[in-house]
């Protein structure tokens, strides 16, 4: 483990050597009902060329974290505390003009729904060319040629013609390819993909994932891949961070987290995922309860109201004391390491591989 090194919430300074280093990030929104703590004490590091998968339910703070990295939150209602260092440059306090230079240039983003995320009013080619003109100072003609080149690179047939089309003339998969072309046009060092395949059907999904992997090889970007689909993450990521209610609850490499998950929430996620090799009659086991309100998060461990293993910890520790996430491979849970291992092997794993 080289990418996830420092303990969450602990007063460890941000790693200025890491490519991207997030330390003790707090993001809260002012709403009419009160203050929503969307991200609460999140830390992680990411190195060049690696892919970090962030997994979690809707509202766990995945997207907010990444919008905050780019400074795309609404400053009128949002408070950001903590540090975000990109190659040593502090982003939380950076001026808007500096962020503009980073966006689409050093850090690019791919959004979930390419139909709503591309403007219906401009041609695909123009939308890809725009950031190239802005960041590279390219002429209109050069930027257009670059856009055509990028469209070809992401596998759009006849890119010269298609660049003149509008997004609604593209199919869903093609639109997402165009979106990827747009994100990669300035050769970014960091690519943030926010559920890039959620709106696509499964075959197209596989194509897009392959494309992203190929392009990562070619461009050497670091990728933050946000999803709620563990299957996708297994395919894409080097490291995984599982988020719940605004904080990280487990992290490790893909193999560690998916082969030997330690946190009851991760178990729940795995349990609620259908598998091709499981008994078609065996019911899925969803996590009981609903994600907590971030207006009023639960005390202690935020997962405790939904956790079925609370009694194994004993006492009221789960309710009173927030577990911390250790360095490297770790999970934020009061169960002992031995308990985590045995519960997974004896109670969780057999259910994941039920055969008819």
């Amino acid at each position, binding site marked *: 483990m080289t990418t996830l090194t420092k303990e969450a919430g602990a007063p460890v300074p941000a790693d200025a050597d890491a490519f991207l280093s997030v330390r003790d990030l707090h993001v809260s929104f002012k709403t009419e009902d009160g203050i929503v703590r969307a991200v609460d004490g999140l830390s992680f590091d990411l190195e060049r060329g690696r892919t970090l998968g962030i997994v979690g339910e809707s509202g766990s703070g995945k997207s907010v974290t990444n919008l905050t990295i*780019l400074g795309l939150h609404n400053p009128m209602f949002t408070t950001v505390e903590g540090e975000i260092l990109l190659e040593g440059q502090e982003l939380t306090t950076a001026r*808007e003009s500096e962020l503009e230079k980073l966006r689409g240039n050093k850090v690019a983003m791919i*959004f979930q729904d390419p139909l709503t995320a591309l403007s219906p009013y401009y041609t695909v080619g123009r939308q890809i060319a*725009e950031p190239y003109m802005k960041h590279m100072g390219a002429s209109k003609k050069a930027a257009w040629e670059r856009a055509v080149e990028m469209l070809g690179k992401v596998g759009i047939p006849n890119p010269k013609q298609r660049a003149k089309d509008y997004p*609604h003339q593209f199919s869903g998969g093609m639109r997402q390819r165009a979106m990827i072309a747009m994100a990669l046009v300035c050769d970014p060092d960091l690519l943030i993909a926010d559920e890039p395949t959620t709106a696509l059907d499964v075959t197209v999904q596989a194509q897009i994932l392959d494309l992203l992997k190929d392009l990562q090889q070619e461009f050497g970007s670091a990728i933050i891949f946000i999803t709620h689909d563990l299957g996708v993450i297994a395919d894409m990521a080097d490291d995984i961070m599982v988020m719940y209610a605004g904080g990280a609850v487990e992290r490790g490499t893909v193999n560690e987290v998916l082969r030997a998950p330690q946190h009851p929430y991760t178990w729940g996620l795995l349990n609620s995922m259908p598998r091709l090799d499981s008994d078609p009659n065996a019911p899925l086991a969803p996590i009981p309860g609903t994600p907590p309100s971030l207006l009023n998060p639960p005390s202690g461990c935020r997962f405790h109201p939904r956790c079925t293993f609370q009694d194994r910890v004993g006492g009221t520790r789960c309710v009173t004391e927030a577990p911390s996430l250790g360095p490297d491979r770790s999970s934020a849970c009061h169960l002992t390491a031995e308990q985590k291992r045995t519960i997974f092997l004896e109670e969780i794993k057999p259910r994941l591989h039920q055969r008819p």
Partner: protein
Amino acid sequence: MLRFLVRRSLGAVVILFLLSIVTFLLFFGMPRDPALLMCGKTCTPANLENLHRVLGLDKPIPEQYWIFLKNLVMGSDDFAQGPCPAPCFGYSYHSNEQVWGTLMDRLPTTLSLTLGGAVCFLIIGLGTGLIAAWKRGTLVDKTFTAGAMVISSMQIYFLGPLALAILVYQTHVFDKPAYNEFTENPAAWFGGLIIPWVVLSTIFASQYTRMARSSMIEQLQEEHVRTARAKGMSRRYVFFRYAWRGSLIPIVTIFGIDLGSLLGGAIITEYTFGLPGLGRLAVESVFFSDLPLLLGVMLFSATMILLCNIVVDAAYAFIDPRVRLA
């Protein structure tokens, strides 16, 4: 595009045709007899019958309508008052003038009032709306929004006389509103219309302020606008290129409706400022049960509204490529 225009124009002709039938029927449903009105106090039954015959009112309604249509398309020499070239709406019962000529006399007033007013209220309304959206949540935004709210709840017949009282009769800053031909004296044309423009545009502008602001704010929350920000485009660029483009659709829609109905005659404004436009003509034609004039004004106003609608629909295609190809 051409097919679209042809199709819409044919549709408009059908609507005008139906409208003329309805107007015709409604007219004969009116309790007042135009001949009786023309005949005056010393009316004898013989006179009245003679008038009915002269006006063609003794013929059955379908035949009268047929004659009206025929005259409209082909023109007519049958009128006692003289020849009437197409488009012939006949001669006014009240003034004995050719209806088409009267319309054309009144049109420049309405056209000047409307177009001048429209330019003012678009600039003021959209300008303040955009500033409010850009500075959303600040004092400027709140001032503009509150001001627009107050002004839009006022009426021309309040604001108009107020402006006249202060600016014309007390301080003599401006001339009394009047219509002067632009071609004869541009300065007088401008001076005579400035107060109507200001009053008209103040009230309309406030609606455009609110509409531009809310539709910009809505657009700024669109995902594609966020994408544009995420690729590093500046706030100004995103505001004017991405959000503004999307805001245009509702604005153009409302503008088309407003312009169309104003071109058909801004009745209250024209009465308030004593301007002889189409709106006044419409009211007068009803007042005098003047069928040819009534039909003329009605069809002319309707044509203006339909024309504006077609222009708006064509404008959609320029604004939104999804419409273009659908």
